[in-house]
């Protein structure tokens, strides 16, 4: 892994006497390779390496007897620090219902995560209602209804010919009448560059003023993660991110890319297809995973 490659690099560099700053640059090329290989965006990596170099020089790595270990520790700590340090709870509204809106690219896991999140929050004492606001994808409404059925949880739907902002408004009204203190709105997958569909999301936001707008991101996303996260955030002001499909073997560098470019907390991770497979995000564990 990275530790071994850094050992090799420093061994070669040390062979010729004292370490110089240029030697550190050379060693950091290995860190760059590891992070880009883990799908962290190359511009995010550039900034990250600059921070790591500053910390390394500052921590006297040039004098260290174990420079490789020192650099690995700095990289790991810096990664964990950058991805953490934020609130990963769901913000409850001062007066119910709390409204959560799920957004993201096609196939990221929004519908499944909507059900998982409702399941998790019900265990915390909430009375959730799921809202089927994807009127485009074939059988999307049915998919959410089936998941709601598995959880014995209400699914609000107005079919596929009512506009999503109107569905959302009607859902919140019904939630208030029925005593559901949590409304989770599942939206259709869309491209961040689809102006019409992004405008639709803004209309939903303007209609029901969600307390949380969560971007659902497939953890195997590559360099494009920054484009997606940046655009969704600029258009909607996200409050959090959920990374899905971390039960696979992807290194998940998209986590750092998304956090770096939006500043939004990663609140949960999807760890499987079952409806109980939603966990808290742990920055330390993610740092370990990215570094392989």
């Amino acid at each position: 892994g990275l530790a071994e490659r850094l050992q090799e690099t420093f061994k070669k560099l040390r062979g010729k006497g004292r370490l110089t700053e240029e030697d550190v640059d050379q060693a950091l090329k290995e860190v760059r390779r590891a992070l880009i290989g883990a799908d962290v965006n190359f511009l995010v990596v550039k900034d990250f390496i600059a921070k790591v170099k500053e910390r390394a020089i500052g921590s006297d790595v040039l004098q260290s007897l174990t420079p490789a270990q020192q650099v690995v520790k700095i990289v790991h700590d810096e990664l964990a620090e950058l991805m953490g340090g934020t609130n990963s709870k769901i913000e409850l509204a001062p007066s119910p219902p709390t409204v959560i809106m799920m957004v993201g690219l096609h196939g990221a896991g929004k519908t499944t995560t909507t059900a998982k999140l409702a399941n998790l929050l019900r265990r915390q004492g909430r009375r959730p209602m799921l809202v089927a606001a994807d009127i485009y994808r074939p059988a999307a409404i049915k998919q959410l209804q089936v998941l709601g059925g598995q959880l014995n949880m209400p699914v609000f739907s107005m079919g596929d010919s009512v506009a999503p902002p109107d569905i959302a408004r009607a859902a919140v009204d019904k939630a208030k009448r029925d005593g559901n203190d949590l409304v989770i709105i599942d939206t259709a997958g869309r491209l961040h560059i689809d102006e019409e569909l992004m405008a639709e999301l803004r209309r939903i936001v303007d209609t029901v003023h969600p307390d949380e707008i969560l971007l659902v991101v497939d953890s195997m996303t590559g360099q494009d993660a920054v484009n997606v996260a940046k655009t969704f955030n600029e258009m909607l002001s996200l409050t959090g991110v959920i990374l899905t499909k971390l039960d696979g073997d992807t290194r998940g560098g998209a986590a750092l890319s998304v956090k770096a470019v939006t500043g939004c907390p990663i609140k949960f991770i999807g760890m499987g297809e079952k409806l109980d497979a939603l966990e808290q995000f742990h920055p330390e564990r993610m740092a370990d995973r990215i570094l392989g």
Partner: protein
Amino acid sequence: VTGRKIIDESLYEELEETLIQADVGIDTALELVENLRAEVKKRKIGNPEELPAVLKELIQQALGEETGGIETGAEQPFVIMVVGVNGVGKTTTIGKLANFYKEQGKSVIMGAADTFRAAAIDQLEIWADRVGVQVIKHTEGSDPAAVAFDSLHAAKARKADVLIIDTAGRLHTKSNLMDELKKVRRVIGRELPGAPHEILLVVDATTGQNAISQAKLFKEAVDVTGLALTKLDGTAKGGVVVAVRQSLGIPIKMIGVGEGIDDLRPFNAKEFVDALFA
């Protein structure tokens, strides 16, 4: 590259970054740029403006000689089994592909062998209805191999030209799910020796380097014969397929460029490579 007067290290770095940004991957990008250096030397190139074209040439070579598309004339029924990880666009691609063959005057049947995911069968049924083809299905929770078996029987009985079998999304690292896929393939092969004639791995263009692991493990499990790269209508370039083609030899056959029924095209290496630099 424009505005540059000489070929220097910063130009090679810029080209390397363009490749990395397109998800070509750092190792493949470094390798391609090394080969570019060698070509520049060999052909005695002095003008920096000529470099992108040479690099494109090298990438196109890496992508192989095959033309895109799936030829279905050789067998009847020609059986296509569609596989891949969760949410990449398998079911949608099957809808588009069925329509493509139907428009060529072929008779197509679909097999709804995703018996696991909520409303997966309903979703494929809507596509079958849109295209105007039959879909063979069982109930949710039934054995996918049994659906594949029945689909093949129906395809033979009705003398269908093409049978396309949908399977549930699954992560390549889940050995029990990969075993299930192996069983589906075995059952198809027992019923019709030589089938499936195409095992199509669907990969999402937004995927990073994990696509290599996906392709490797799916190939080991069910011997993937072709790749469909979806969601190229977004901003992701899908450059990881270069490494997949180079290291595993899997040809890219189709690309998905939208959610609509006509948003499927045969893979064209030149257009794909041009888009990497766009």
